[in-house]
């Protein structure tokens, strides 16, 4: 049989609450992170992802307390992202109970972070998340996918596919 297909609910967090928005704006409150995590766990989710979607744009620190609370009650793999800026942040999240750390804005601003974190903790726990939007250049009918940071707010000029290839190249370290 081999590995199962996984169902992974992804919860966007803003100011300590789970929110539902459209394209990261018009956020509506969706409830308490721990409560929602527990409900998904009961329903048989294979993993959970928590992303503090405004950590970079609001220049906020990690959601350590939420991770600690969820990891104390839900025994499935957790991926956490939002405001990860240094290797030390990866360590703090892993110690709080995350199994994987997701890096988005900082991967663009400081690619070395991805390589360093994967080198130290192993590629199995480093995820690069990419927000891409379809854009077209002025006077050109051709549409392309461009990478955006800060929860879809800032254009980078990077082509999404090229960016993903680059990221893959950095994370070849494998452990265990």
């Amino acid at each position: 049989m081999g590995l199962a297909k996984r169902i992974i609910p992804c919860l966007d967090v803003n100011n300590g609450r789970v929110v539902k928005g459209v394209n990261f704006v018009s956020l509506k409150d969706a409830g308490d992170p721990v409560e929602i995590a527990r409900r998904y766990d009961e329903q048989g989710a294979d993993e959970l992802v928590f992303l503090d979607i405004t950590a970079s744009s609001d220049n906020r620190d990690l959601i350590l307390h939420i991770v600690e609370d969820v990891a104390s009650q839900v025994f499935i793999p957790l991926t956490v992202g939002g405001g990860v800026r240094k290797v030390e942040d990866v360590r703090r999240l892993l110690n709080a109970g995350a199994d994987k750390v997701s890096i988005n804005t900082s991967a663009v601003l400081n690619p070395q972070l991805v390589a360093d974190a994967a080198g130290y903790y192993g590629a199995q726990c480093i995820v690069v998340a990419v927000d891409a939007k379809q854009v077209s250049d002025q006077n050109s009918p051709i549409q392309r996918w461009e990478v955006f940071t800060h929860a879809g707010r800032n254009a980078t000029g990077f082509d999404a596919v090229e960016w993903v290839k680059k990221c893959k190249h950095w994370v070849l370290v494998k452990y265990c």
Partner: protein
Amino acid sequence: MTAIAIVDYGMGNLRSVSKALERVAPYATVQVTSDPETVDKASHIVVPGQGAMPHCMQELDKFGLKEVVIDAARNKPFLGICIGLQMLFDESEEGNVKGLGVLSGKVVHFSTSCETDIQGGKLKIPHMGWNQVYQTMDHPLWDGIKSDARFYFVHSYYVKSEDPDLSAAYSLYPTPFTCAIAKDNIFAVQFHPEKSQNAGLTLLSNFAKWKPHSSH
């Protein structure tokens, strides 16, 4: 009195292991510890571990925990998880490092047995995700767990023992590999029971209740 010591030698997060044990064994004391004396006094020992095996062995030595872990593996209900399984054996291909040598066998990389997946594509390493665990022996730690239950795996290496009687379960990736071993007071798994939801919690609950010596 059940006193479970989770051996902390600085390699990775032990919160999930300790919280999961607290959940399933509220009658027990659960301690995350680097102190050899505490490990020595506990009734049950859990040795987790993640990261690179050479680094794990080095840290275990640095914390002065090597002897007491070997001693526990010979005498007490012992649960090894991931590297905690691998380190029981003689040696690992990962950095060609020596293990504790409690059990005879070697830890090898997936690429040494197979390089392609079922579809003929390149085999993805690490082996990561939920895979089925097929039990090969009756054991108190499998109580209440179906023999094809899925557990969560993250690893690139697995144990290859010379002793076929050691195997307690195998998984397919895509070829069969031993993912759990059992001998006397030792039970050790390649997967992560603390991340494997109900099946994992059942296994941890069984471990906390396990009295290997009285069952023989």
